[in-house]
């Protein structure tokens, strides 16, 4: 507990104290300017898109890995963890290499919002896939077969039988992906260019010595991420019952 306090809790408390150090009014005024609000909107918007796309593609990937069989499946299975193993700067750099100025495929995404989305999809790929996979493995196939034998189409079976069982896993994976996206820095530092991302604005504020502004934006970001995590826990508790 002492360890946790010294490393995590006391420093985070310091951020909150700093943000409120000159009253609630100044906290608001340091957020309420076009640049900061813009950054917040873009960050949260991008994270929502990433969570949604990630939920769909992550489920698809998990489905293929569990239900399909093809040569090289085990390799693909370990590849899913690559974004966790690869340093995020390298992730950003690889995307610049592919979609940047000297792009071999002629797609110039780097330094745009598109690049931010791709980078976030990259780093959050494992969350949904890895949370859906175990549930899908445990899922009883007989119910699906029963549905099919009663004349349900593939789509109906998936929507009415499989999806309800997977929903908690998909939602918790997507929520983690969202929380990660809101705070992501490493992979975006190189690729975001002039796109204002909240974590990059915080970094710029720290570098220019305006710790108060940085702390204010930090508190807002933490509040958003914590709200998502809290909602997730409530949801999980409800499903458990």
């Amino acid at each position: 507990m002492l360890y946790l306090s010294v490393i995590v809790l006391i420093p985070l408390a310091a951020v909150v104290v700093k943000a409120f150090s000159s009253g609630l009014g100044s906290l608001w005024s340091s957020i309420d300017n076009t640049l900061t609000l813009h950054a917040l909107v873009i960050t949260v918007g991008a994270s929502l898109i990433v969570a949604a796309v990630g939920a769909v593609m992550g489920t698809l990937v998990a489905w293929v890995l569990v239900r399909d069989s093809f040569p090289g499946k085990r390799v693909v299975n370990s590849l899913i963890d690559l974004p966790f193993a690869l340093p995020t700067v390298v992730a950003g750099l690889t995307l610049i290499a592919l979609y940047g100025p000297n792009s071999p495929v002629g797609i110039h995404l780097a330094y745009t919002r598109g690049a931010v989305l791709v980078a976030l999809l990259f780093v959050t790929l494992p969350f949904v896939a890895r949370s859906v996979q175990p549930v899908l493995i445990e899922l009883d196939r007989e119910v699906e077969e029963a549905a099919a034998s009663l004349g349900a189409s593939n789509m109906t079976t998936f929507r009415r039988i499989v999806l309800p069982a997977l929903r908690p896993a998909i939602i918790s994976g997507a929520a983690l992906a969202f929380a990660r996206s809101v705070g992501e820095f490493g992979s975006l530092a190189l690729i975001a260019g002039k796109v204002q991302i909240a974590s990059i604005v915080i970094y710029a504020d720290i570098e220019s010595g305006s710790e108060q502004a940085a702390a204010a934006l930090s508190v807002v970001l933490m509040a958003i991420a914590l709200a998502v995590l809290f909602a997730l826990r409530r949801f999980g508790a409800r499903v458990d019952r």
Partner: protein
Amino acid sequence: MSLRALALLYLTLLLLAPLAIVFGRTFEHGIGTAWAFVTTPAAVSAFSLSVLIAVIAVPLNTIFGVGCAMVLARSRAPRAGKGILDALIDLPFVVSPVIAGLALILVYGQGGWFGSAFLNNGIRIIYAVPGMVIATVFVSLPFVVREVTPVLREVGDEQEQAAATLGASSWQTFWRVTLPTIRWGVAYGVVLTTARALGEIGAILVVSSNVAGSTLTLPLLLYQRDDQVGGQVTTSVYALATELAVISVAVLLLMTLFGSRREKSG
């Protein structure tokens, strides 16, 4: 297009193609050139600093992680208390690394809550290696706890109780019974911690003074080099990226190995 093709295409475009290009760019002037870039004094010292930080941070978080998991899964503390601890441990995953860095500056930096006390005794934390170690510990703290707690819950405490009735002290029980059961979970958590420790940039960037040769880790060196050339990525940057990527592929192999062992034993 079948689902399989769609899933594989998505993975290829997102994961494999970008990596392949980085490898290609690294070696386009031959292996010798690439090797020369990763053996410059700056690159070598960045590599050793990365390793040094990981060597300090990973054992700390492993000991804390196993201890904390024991508390969460075994102690008879009130449920509410454990619930709070459980939620607090996830904080480093939720908080942006940049915010972590800022938080450490506000506490341990000049004019921070404890910073002046340390500085007066000649201990420099922020903009020096100790701060970078603390930042790394911060961002990689939850991994071991998160991996070990479910294993402990899963195996139950019957064997531990049996050991206790046979007269084993709690220390003996831990070393002889508990630890061997959870070893693959611990190993997996350690690998995840190491990967994060070696690759972290956000938190470290904030608390490092960014001086090549003393306080630059590999990811920082990469970031700084790229910053300087302004978008025109050079072979030296690609070489560093490949070095990091090779390390992470090794980590990935360990993850796969420990991950499957853990599933078998758990």
